[in-house]
C-alpha cells in the first residue's frame, strides 16, 4: 500500500498538466492555482483550501456545520500547533456568530450544593491559572485511510493539534459548587445547537473521577492568546488524553448527574467495539460497543513529504512527533526495510505527558529507488502501534504505523 506515492503522483500530474498547457500557449486559461486545493492520499480526497475567520486557508471538510482540517505540512512548523491552523469541527449547524465574553456564563447544576453561573472573570478568580500542553485529536482523524472506507467526515491526518492551554481545573469549579454524594458523571455542552427540534443536542458525559482529577480543565487561552472563535471562544473544556469529542467548545453548561448519561452522542454515536483493540474484522458488525475515550499511541514523520527525492548515501536529519494518552512516549523508531530492522530516534524536549513529543534522528539512504520509511512509537506501558489499521464501523481511533515513500537517487 502506498498512499503517499499516489498523492505525489497526483501532484506531479497536476503540475505536468499545468506545464503542458503553458507549453502549448494556453497559459492564459484560468488554471486553478496549486494553492487552492490539497489532495489527501485516498479516493475523492481533494479539498479546497479556504480561510475562515482567524484561520489561515485550511482544508474545507464541510461548510455547515464548519469542519476544517489542517494541511499536514503545518506540523513541520513546530511542536505547538499554531492557533490559526488548528483544526475545527462542529457537530451542529446552528453555531453562534457572535459571543460577548463579558456576558458569557457557565452554568453548573445538578447534584451540587450550590448551583453556579460563572463569568469568565469568576472562573479566573477561582484560583491560580494552570497550564497544560495537550493534544486535541478528532476521533475520526485519519478516517479516510481506513479500509474498507466508512461514511463520515473523510479526514487525513490533520485533524489533530497540540497546544498550551491556560485555564482553571474543572475540579476547582466543582469544589466551588460542592459535589453531592451519589454523583456519577458530569454532562457538558456548549453554545452550538441543532436546527431541528428532533435532532439530539451535542451533549457529552464522563465519569466524575475524570472531572475531579485536577487535569481536566476549563481553558480560556490557547498558546497564550484567546481561544479562536471556531475552537471554542471564550472557554473550552480540555480533557487531556481524551479524544476531541469531549473537548466541548463555547462551554456553557455542566451538570452533575447520578447515573450514566444516555444521550445520543454517548449512547449511539462516538462508540467503538467493546474490546481491547476497539476493533472487529473489517466490514463486520460488532456485538457490543462502548463510548470512545482515550487517545491511542501514534507517531509521524513531519520533516519529509511522501515522494521527495533524496541523495544516496547522504545522511539526512529526520524529524517528527509522537503522542499517546498520557502514559508518556518512551521510544520512537524508524525503519527503511519494511519493518525488519528498526533504528532508534532521539526524543526531544518533554513538554508534558499529554503533549506531542518531538523526535529526531539521522538517516542515511542506503539503496537506490523507492524507499518506504516507517515510524513507530512505544509508551511507558509498552503499548505500540499496529502494523496495519484496525477496523471499526465508525472509522475511529486509527493508529497504524505510518509509512511514507521517498525516492533515493
Amino acid at each position, binding site marked *: 500500500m502506498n498512499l503517499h506515492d499516489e498523492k505525489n503522483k497526483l501532484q506531479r500530474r497536476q503540475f505536468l498538466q499545468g506545464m503542458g498547457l503553458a507549453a502549448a500557449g494556453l497559459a492564459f486559461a484560468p488554471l486553478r492555482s496549486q494553492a487552492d486545493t490539497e489532495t489527501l492520499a*485516498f*479516493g*475523492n480526497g481533494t*479539498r*479546497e483550501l*479556504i*480561510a*475562515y*475567520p*482567524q*484561520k*489561515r486557508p485550511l482544508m*474545507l*471538510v*464541510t*461548510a*455547515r*456545520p*464548519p469542519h476544517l482540517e489542517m494541511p499536514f505540512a503545518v506540523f513541520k512548523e513546530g511542536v505547538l500547533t*499554531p*492557533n*490559526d491552523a488548528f483544526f475545527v469541527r462542529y457537530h451542529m*449547524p*446552528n453555531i453562534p*456568530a*457572535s*459571543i*460577548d*465574553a*463579558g*456576558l458569557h456564563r457557565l452554568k453548573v447544576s445538578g447534584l451540587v450544593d450550590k448551583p453556579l453561573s460563572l463569568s*469568565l472573570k469568576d472562573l479566573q478568580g477561582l484560583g491560580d491559572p494552570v497550564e497544560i500542553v495537550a493534544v486535541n485529536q478528532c476521533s475520526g482523524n485519519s478516517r*479516510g485511510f481506513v479500509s474498507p*472506507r*466508512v*461514511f463520515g*467526515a*473523510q479526514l487525513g491526518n490533520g485533524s489533530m493539534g497540540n497546544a498550551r492551554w491556560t485555564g482553571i481545573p474543572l475540579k476547582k469549579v466543582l469544589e466551588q459548587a460542592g459535589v453531592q454524594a451519589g454523583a456519577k458523571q458530569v454532562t457538558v455542552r456548549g453554545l452550538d445547537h*441543532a*436546527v*431541528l*427540534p*428532533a*435532532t*439530539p443536542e451535542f451533549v457529552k458525559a464522563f465519569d466524575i473521577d475524570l472531572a475531579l482529577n485536577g487535569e481536566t480543565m476549563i481553558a*480560556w487561552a490557547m498558546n497564550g*492568546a*484567546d481561544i479562536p*472563535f*471556531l475552537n471554542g*471562544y*471564550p472557554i473550552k473544556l480540555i480533557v487531556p488524553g481524551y479524544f476531541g469529542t469531549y473537548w466541548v467548545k463555547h462551554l456553557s453548561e455542566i451538570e452533575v448527574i447520578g447515573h450514566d448519561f444516555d444521550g*445520543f452522542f454517548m449512547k*449511539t*454515536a462516538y462508540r467503538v467495539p467493546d474490546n481491547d483493540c476497539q476493533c472487529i474484522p473489517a466490514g463486520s458488525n460488532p456485538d457490543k460497543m462502548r463510548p470512545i475515550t482515550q487517545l491511542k499511541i501514534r507517531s509521524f514523520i513531519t520533516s519529509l513529504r511522501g515522494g521527495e527525492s533524496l541523495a544516496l548515501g547522504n545522511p539526512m536529519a529526520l524529524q517528527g512527533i509522537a503522542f499517546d494518552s498520557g502514559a508518556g512516549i518512551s521510544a520512537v523508531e524508524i525503519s527503511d526495510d519494511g519493518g525488519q530492522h528498526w533504528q532508534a530516534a532521539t526524543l526531544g524536549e518533554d513538554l508534558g505527558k499529554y503533549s506531542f513529543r518531538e523526535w529526531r534522528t539521522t538517516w542515511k539512504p542506503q539503496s537506490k529507488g523507492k524507499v518506504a520509511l516507517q515510524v513507530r512509537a512505544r509508551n511507558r506501558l509498552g503499548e505500540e502501534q499496529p502494523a496495519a489499521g484496525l477496523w471499526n464501523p465508525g472509522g475511529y481511533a486509527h493508529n497504524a504505523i505510518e509509512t511514507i515513500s521517498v525516492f533515493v537517487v
Partner: protein
Amino acid sequence: MKRLNLFKILIGKLFQPNAKYRRSGMDCRNLGSMDGGVRGIPAIWIPAIHAGMTDSCNLILIGLKTVGFVALCAFASVALSEPLTIKLPAETVKLRPSDTPGYALALQKCAICHSADYIEYQPPGMSEAQWTAEVGKMQHAYGAPITDDEVKLIGAYLAASYSGKPAQVTGIQPYTQPLATITPIADVRVLLDQNACLSCHAIDKKLVGPSYRDIAARYKDDPKAMDKLAEFIAKGGSGRWGDIPMPPFPALKPEELKSLAGFVVGWK
C-alpha cells in the same frame, strides 16, 4: 520582531479605507496572530476580555506620536465590551443535479441541517444500500423530516449521482407527486410543519434565518411582496439576510407558495 509585525499590521489597516478592524473594540494583543484578517479574509472583531488597555497598546502609545495610532488604540480601549463576531465564508458545493425524484427531495431536506460538501466528499463507490442506510440514519438518529419512502428515493439519488450507479428503487411506487401533495394541505400550519420552516424561522426572533416579523417589515411597502416571497421560498438562496443559505423548496405548488408568502407578509 513581533512588535514590528504589529506595527505593520496597524499601519496597513490604518490606511485601508475599508479596514474592518477600525470598526469596533479590538484587543491589540491579538493582532499579531490574526493572519486571516491581515490577508483580507472575512471580517473579525476581537474584543478585550480584560479591563484596561493592553501592553501592546501602551507600547504603541509611547512609541508613536501618530494621531491615527492614538485614535486607534483609544478606540480599542473604550469599546471593551464588544462581542467577538465572525462571518463565515459562503457555501460553495452544490448537490449534483439529477432527474431522479430524490434530487428535489435532497435539495429541500438535506440542506436544512448541513451543506452539500458532506455528501460530495464521501468515499467513492458506496452502494445504494449503504447510501440509503446513511439517509435512514438522518431520519432516525437526527430527526430529518423525511418519510421511509423518501429515504429510499434520496438513497437512490445519492447512489446514482455520487457512486456512478444507476438508481434501482424497488419496493416502492415511482415518485409521481411533489412531496407537499402527499398529504393534502389543510392549512399553512401543516405546510410550515411539513417543510420544517420553523426550524430556521420564528415569528419574533432570528433563528438560523430572519424572523417573520423582520421579513414582513422589509416588504411592507412593496406591492410585489407576495410574488417575491413566493419566489424566494421556491428557489431558496442567500445574501438577502446573511450568508446562511435557505434551501429551495421546488416541490411546493404555486398555491402553497402563495399561502406561505401570505402567512409571512401577514406579520407586518
